């Protein structure tokens, strides 16, 4: 039997077993999106693979089942028992065909029209009578199945449990460390009777280590071997001419990593062939050779493996992606306007996104790039995308060689040694400490924050010794080294006293009682027997209060939307009012940062103004005086609808990601209070005050200054939207409490929280918005409150369901004005009633 087929059978049998379980689970909990997603992907994979192997019977049955599941996933169809039965019947049929395939090496003959018609009937919505007929149809054929399935397992090599290999790996790791210790002792002692046997022991240990590593290493070509056939079949199916170039097949990587990379690679090649490359005519018209090329390349680069999947096709059209993002409601026009093309292209990694206009058998159902990315990230890898319109697309995947042994840089800080994984180290910079440094670079400070001007970038710095609260033991060396590390998509400089060298270290997990120290990703034993901690640069960045999810490189980026990253929110730090004290404002409230020439600032009776985008924009200064220094004036622009105002500040300092916990109230107008942000007491700006200074009627009279601020509860599971909604609503004059789930909100209710209205997301895990609304309406303090539903979709049917569940109004998730109008409406109505 064909290797490809044998592998398909093994895989499919595993998937089918998993599917049986998952479907039964889904029947019991029809709202379980995770299970549904799993089922959909498994069936999708089976269907996809059959298509390439030329198994039409399987493909048709799987395609029909996938259609039903697709509708269930889109909530157009409920996962009722008849629906599940129909899908299970289809799975039984698939099993039967697979068994026949295993026995004969080819699909057995037979007619599946019954099963397919039943599935189509279920998909179109008239389910009930479909199920019984199906069951009786499949029973008689089921008997043939068991014996045939056995035949699949004609094993060619010994299967060894991963645990056994892991155990061997651990033992070898220990052996290597012990050997290193012995060698160190022997070097100190000079020649002795032990030297010769020790030498032999050392060699054997090295061989053994390599041997054990080899059991886990496989050439990446193993994951590629079915791609040529896949591409060939795809070329036939789509009428394109495609050549697949493969380089670096012999590049070896850990078996586990390889297994996890197999599916993502297949998906990506499939995508390149289906979406990336144009048909021959289009290529000719574009002046390219008819033959489209897909290039796969793998190579080692410092402890990790780079895999490139490139094509010379049409490239990703950012404009098309933009439209798609808008139509899918993944972002608003305003958000998109602020994004670079690269950021827009990155939307293809979002769940539910697919650029193919039509759903084909090959791809285009929105399972794909999001799965690819999550698979890669699960093994600690990253995927990047570069694309030129008309010239092609290149995906670059960076994954660790193995997850157990890493190359690390050993550094010293105040007498203690630490390991920093080489994968995240970009470069080392020697800096002269303090004064008297002539030629070498020097650390500068902004306020008390150290930074390093590295080429054209301002690199944020943290001093390892301070962060880890190490005592000053020895005299501070006059020289220091900055380890420039990649954190998220930005950079962070870690200041250490000394750098030794790199060493291959065996990563061992830290003890459970130390897990709360997120700065360490593990610990290890060095050759001299000492135990040291392995630093996690991302953890270091988090501890230093730097958001790792976005670039810190460019302050202009600050005007872009902050991305989701754990708790807290992105805050813009600045200085204003001449006293040099740090001030903060939630970044979500700031529309833009501008630097305007001082000569552009004009004085009027009402204060300062400037001409901004063809209009007059009032400028407000925190101390009523335009600060005099410098040729330009940095301003924070706040905008709403047609109006905008600028707040003149002395200096924009940084964007940090932190929890905003107000610790002290404020007596002075214009400040909400003081919070500790990035380890420093910082005044938080009361935006509302400054906005009304510029435009007395900024809030359109919705809240007059005297009236009590109305209280809102926002229930939203996504950090991102919560972070966006809370400041928006707060800026509109509401007191906002946020809850991450329906359950949390209900706990707040039971805890006695009083609010005037509730804004809730519909799509949430565990308890969705509809269920939450029903709970609220059932009784308790909130039973009569206005409830506004937020949804990404605006189908009338959804709205009806929402109103039935108890929602007062229904709003689009991204329509800020709509939401504010609805809130005003609901709350006034309530007052009148």
């Amino acid at each position, binding site marked *: 039997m064909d290797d490809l087929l044998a592998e398909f059978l093994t895989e499919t049998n595993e998937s089918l077993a998993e599917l049986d379980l998952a479907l039964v689970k889904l029947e019991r909990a029809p709202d379980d999106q995770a299970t549904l997603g799993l089922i959909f992907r498994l069936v999708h994979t089976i269907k996809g693979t059959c298509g390439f192997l030329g198994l039409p019977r399987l493909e048709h049955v799987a395609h029909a089942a996938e259609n039903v599941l697709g509708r269930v996933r889109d909530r157009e169809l409920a996962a009722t028992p008849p629906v599940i039965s129909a899908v299970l019947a289809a799975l039984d049929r698939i099993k039967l065909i697979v068994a026949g395939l295993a026995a004969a090496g080819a699909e057995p003959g037979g007619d599946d029209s019954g099963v397919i018609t039943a599935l189509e009937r279920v998909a179109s919505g008239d389910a009930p009578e479909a199920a019984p007929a199906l069951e009786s149809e499949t029973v008689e054929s089921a008997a043939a199945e068991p014996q045939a399935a056995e035949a699949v397992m004609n094993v060619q090599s010994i299967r060894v449990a991963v*645990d056994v290999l*892991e*155990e061997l*790996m*651990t033992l070898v*790791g*220990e*052996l290597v*460390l*012990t050997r290193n210790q012995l060698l160190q002792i022997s070097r100190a002692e000079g020649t002795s009777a032990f030297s010769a046997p020790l030498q032999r022991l050392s060699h054997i240990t090295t061989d053994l280590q390599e041997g054990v590593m080899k059991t886990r290493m496989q050439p990446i070509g193993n994951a590629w071997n079915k791609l040529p056939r896949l591409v060939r079949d795809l070329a036939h199916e789509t009428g394109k001419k495609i050549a697949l170039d493969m380089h670096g097949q012999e590049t070896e990587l*850990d078996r*586990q990593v390889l297994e996890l990379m197999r599916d993502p690679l297949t998906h990506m090649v499939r995508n390149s062939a289906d979406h990336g490359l144009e048909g021959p005519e289009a290529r000719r018209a574009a002046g390219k050779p008819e033959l489209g090329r897909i290039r796969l390349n793998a190579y080692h680069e410092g402890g990790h493996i780079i895999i490139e999947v490139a094509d010379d096709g049409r490239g990703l059209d950012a404009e098309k992606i933009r439209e798609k993002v808008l139509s899918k409601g993944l972002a608003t026009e305003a958000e998109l306007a602020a994004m670079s093309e690269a950021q827009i292209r990155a939307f293809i990694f979002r769940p539910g996104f697919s650029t193919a206009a039509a759903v084909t058998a090959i791809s285009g159902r929105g399972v794909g790039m999001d799965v690819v990315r999550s698979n890669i990230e699960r093994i600690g890898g990253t995927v990047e995308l570069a694309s030129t319109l008309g010239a092609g697309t290149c995906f670059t995947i960076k994954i660790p060689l*193995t*997850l*157990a042994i890493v190359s690390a840089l050993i550094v010293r800080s105040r007498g*203690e040694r630490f390991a920093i994984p080489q994968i995240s180290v970009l470069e080392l910079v020697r800096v002269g400490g303090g004064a008297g440094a002539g030629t070498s670079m020097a650390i500068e400070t902004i306020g008390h924050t150290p930074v390093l001007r590295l080429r054209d970038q301002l690199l944020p710095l943290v001093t390892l010794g301070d962060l*880890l*609260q*190490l005592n000053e033991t020895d005299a501070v060396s006059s020289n220091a080294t900055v380890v420039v590390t990649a954190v998220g998509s930005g950079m962070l400089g870690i200041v250490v006293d000394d750098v030794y060298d790199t060493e291959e270290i*065996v*990563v*061992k*997990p830290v*003890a*459970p*009682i*130390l*897990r*709360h*120290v997120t*700065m360490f990703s593990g*610990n*290890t*034993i060095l050759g001299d*027997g*000492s*135990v*040291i*901690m392995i630093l996690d640069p991302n953890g270091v960045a988090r501890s230093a209060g730097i958001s790792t999810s976005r670039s810190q490189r460019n302050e202009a980026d600050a005007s872009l939307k902050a991305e989701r990253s754990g708790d807290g929110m992105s805050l813009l730090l600045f200085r204003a009012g001449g006293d040099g004290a740090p001030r903060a404002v939630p970044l979500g409230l700031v529309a833009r940062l501008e630097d305007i020439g001082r000569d552009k600032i004009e004085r009027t009776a009402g204060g300062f103004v400037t001409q901004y985008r063809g209009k007059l924009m009032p400028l407000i200064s925190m101390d009523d005086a335009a600060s005099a220094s410098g040729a330009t004036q940095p301003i924070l622009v706040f905008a709403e609808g047609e109006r905008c105002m600028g707040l003149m500040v002395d200096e924009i300092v940084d964007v940090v990601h932190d929890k905003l916990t107000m610790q002290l109230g404020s007596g002075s107008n214009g400040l909400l209070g003081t919070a500790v942000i990035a380890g420093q007491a910082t005044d938080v700006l009361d935006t509302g005050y400054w906005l009304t200074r510029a435009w007395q009627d900024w809030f359109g009279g919705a809240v007059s200054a005297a009236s009590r601020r109305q209280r809102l509860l926002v229930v939203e599971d996504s950090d991102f939207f919560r972070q966006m909604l809370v400041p928006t609503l707060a800026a509109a004059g509401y007191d906002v409490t946020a809850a991450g789930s329906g359950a949390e909100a209900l706990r707040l209710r039971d805890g006695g929280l009083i609010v005037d209205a509730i804004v809730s997301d519909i799509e949430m895990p565990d308890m969705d918005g509809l269920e939450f609304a029903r709970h609220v309406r059932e009784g308790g303090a909130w039973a009569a409150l206005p409830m506004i539903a937020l949804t990404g979709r605006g189908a009338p049917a959804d709205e009806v369901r929402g109103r039935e569940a108890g929602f007062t109004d229904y709003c689009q998730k991204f329509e800020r004005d709509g939401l504010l109008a609805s809130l005003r409406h609901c709350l006034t109505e309530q007052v009148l009633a």
Partner: protein
Amino acid sequence: MTEAGVTARENAGVADTGDDVVVLTLTLGDQLCGVPVLGVRDVLAGQAIARIPLAPVEVAGNLNLRGRIVTAIDLRERLRLPPRAAGAPSMSIVTEQGSELYALLVDHVSEVVTLRRHAMEPNPPTLPAIWTDHSQGIYRTDQSLLVVLDVERLLQIDVAAAA
């Protein structure tokens, strides 16, 4: 990937018989204590302990026991006793819990003794909570009273409070 796989190794051929408790005795300051001998994997003296920044105060650091990393817990800190004088010798008792190795740092380890279960006394009510929380019982011996420590509870360090 390497979740330190642990081989279950045979313990020494000492076992609790129905009525007796076999403990390894140790001293902490003036206090005689014991830990059930079945849970003891190793007794070490003079090990280099690497300190761990930001760790809870009870965690003395890491040590290397034949290629495995052992987390050292200072029982003096754990039981809120005054710290050991600088340079004073210490010994550690290595024990395993949930496939992790821990070393209990004590002043001195003495001997293995068999305690009769009927010689057990309840905790006196005036005993500070830090002791009653971590004691399995108090035994009379010829010379003094011996507290049998509850190792499992000693290793439950409240991270939130320490952090």
